């Protein structure tokens, strides 16, 4: 199975700071790849580079064999949620989805299907996003990512702000998506959450990959993921957060 997301020697430099340092990894289809690392490790920057919101300094990312911008209707094939808070507070949830559906070319009825799938009630959908909790915004964002029936999902910290029911729901959703052949790349700093949901782990610390393998492999080596995370990212975690 050829990988659906391929990151090759990706580097992103901000002045003197190397936010992403020669990162390479792959996310195969039919699985959830957890992208783990401390805050500021370069997870979000890598994901933004993947969809070219952030220009890479060097290296490249291909999704479904192409650069993101070369896909003719990219967001219909790659569902993206990079920051659930990044929505216009004055638009309603339904309006946000409608704008997405109009751009992708999905029919109006799709908006209702998606709302139902992510568990936003008609009343909530009519409310402005400014009134939403972070958990509701995450649901809306996941719904937006699913509008075009994508083959690949790229989600940055989608569990943030979700309550236990929400996390359970999302775990089932992503598990089902991957088991049906979809590719999921999901970042988190919540080890336990990732351990439950992911098949594979890519761990990043201070811009560099520090571990890459199946959850079983990584656990076999280290007993549990937390020990490994603390060990591998100890020297690379941010100043002041070092263990």
């Amino acid at each position: 199975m050829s990988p659906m997301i391929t990151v090759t020697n990706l580097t992103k430099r901000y002045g003197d700071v190397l936010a992403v340092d020669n990162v390479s990894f792959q996310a195969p289809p039919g699985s959830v790849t957890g992208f783990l690392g401390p805050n500021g490790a370069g997870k979000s920057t890598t994901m933004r580079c993947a969809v070219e919101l952030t220009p890479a300094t060097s290296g490249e990312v291909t999704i479904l064999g192409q650069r993101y911008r070369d896909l003719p209707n990219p967001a219909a094939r790659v569902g993206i949620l990079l920051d659930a808070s990044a929505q216009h507070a004055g638009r309603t949830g339904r309006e946000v989805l409608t704008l997405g559906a109009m751009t992708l070319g999905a029919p109006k009825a799709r908006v209702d299907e998606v709302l139902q799938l992510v568990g936003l009630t008609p009343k909530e959908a009519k409310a402005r996003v400014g009134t939403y909790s972070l958990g509701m915004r995450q649901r809306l964002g996941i719904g937006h990512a699913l509008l075009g029936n994508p083959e690949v999902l790229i989600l940055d910290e989608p569990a943030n702000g979700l309550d236990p029911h929400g996390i359970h729901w999302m775990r089932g959703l992503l598990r089902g998506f991957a088991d049906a052949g979809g590719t999921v790349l999901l970042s988190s700093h919540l080890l336990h959450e990732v351990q439950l949901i992911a098949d594979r782990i890519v761990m990043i610390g201070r811009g560099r990959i520090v571990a890459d393998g199946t959850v079983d492999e990584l656990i076999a080596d280290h007993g549990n993921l937390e020990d490994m995370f603390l060990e591998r990212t100890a020297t690379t975690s941010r100043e002041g957060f070092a263990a």
Partner: protein
Amino acid sequence: MTADLTPTHPSDQTGTEMTSTQPVAADPMAHPLTQMAARPAPKVELLKPTTVFDRVGFGSLVKVEMRKFLDTRAGAWLLGIGLASAVGIALICAVFYRQLTEITGTSWTMLAGFVGFGVQLLVPVMVILMFTTEWTQRTTLTTFSLEPRRGRVVAAKGVVAVAVALALWLFQYGMAAVGSAIGGAVHHIDVDWSMDWKILAGSLAAYIMSMAMAAGFGMLFMNTAAAIVTYMALPMVVSTLGLAGSKVQAVLNWVDLSTASVPLLLGEWKANDGWQLLTASLIWVVLPVVLGTWRYLRTEAK
């Protein structure tokens, strides 16, 4: 817990495993999400497949940007107030039509300048918002994910700005005609209905220029307050410099867009007027649009 969840490809998944769990359609060609409910363990609702465009068309980008222009409370209020002010001013002009025509003459186009006052003040603000709120509300993450070729997004917003300029120009002259008709009828004054194409075309050009200038400032600053203040205040500051003396004013004639646009609105052109309009619009319109577009296309969306 992950050990038993071996990743499977859709093509591997259509056999006995699926059909034995639930009688859900196990079409091998069906999209992943449609098959989600087929697995017993995670309870996931069914999401049907959907039709999507083969590619994102420019027309749909324009439609979406037009909708975004109008679908927030700020946009609706600004446009509503602008349009209401035009209607209100047209009626006031009709009431005082006799006094007005004693100053301005009876040409129906003379009313347009009054009628458009509110619209011309508020709608550039909407155009600025169209470009700045993407950054202040961080919707660039969505907008540029849906269409990573940002130049097309900027072009779609530009089409919206020009379309809005055209619509408002029509509305402004429409209300000028209504006001003149009512005023003329009430006060028994013969309105001069002749079409002065020079003025009509000139005012349309001025409209489009002010929308382009607003777009340029919005893109250049990517910040609503800075863009609006600069758009409103900087031209006034420059005009005021003319008070410093006739030598300064002689230079300003080539720089100040508000004075340079006057021939457009009056339809009377003297020597140098065209060149002065050209240099002033290069400074206030072309330069901000070029620099702003460059910045809009390159800035990291985060």
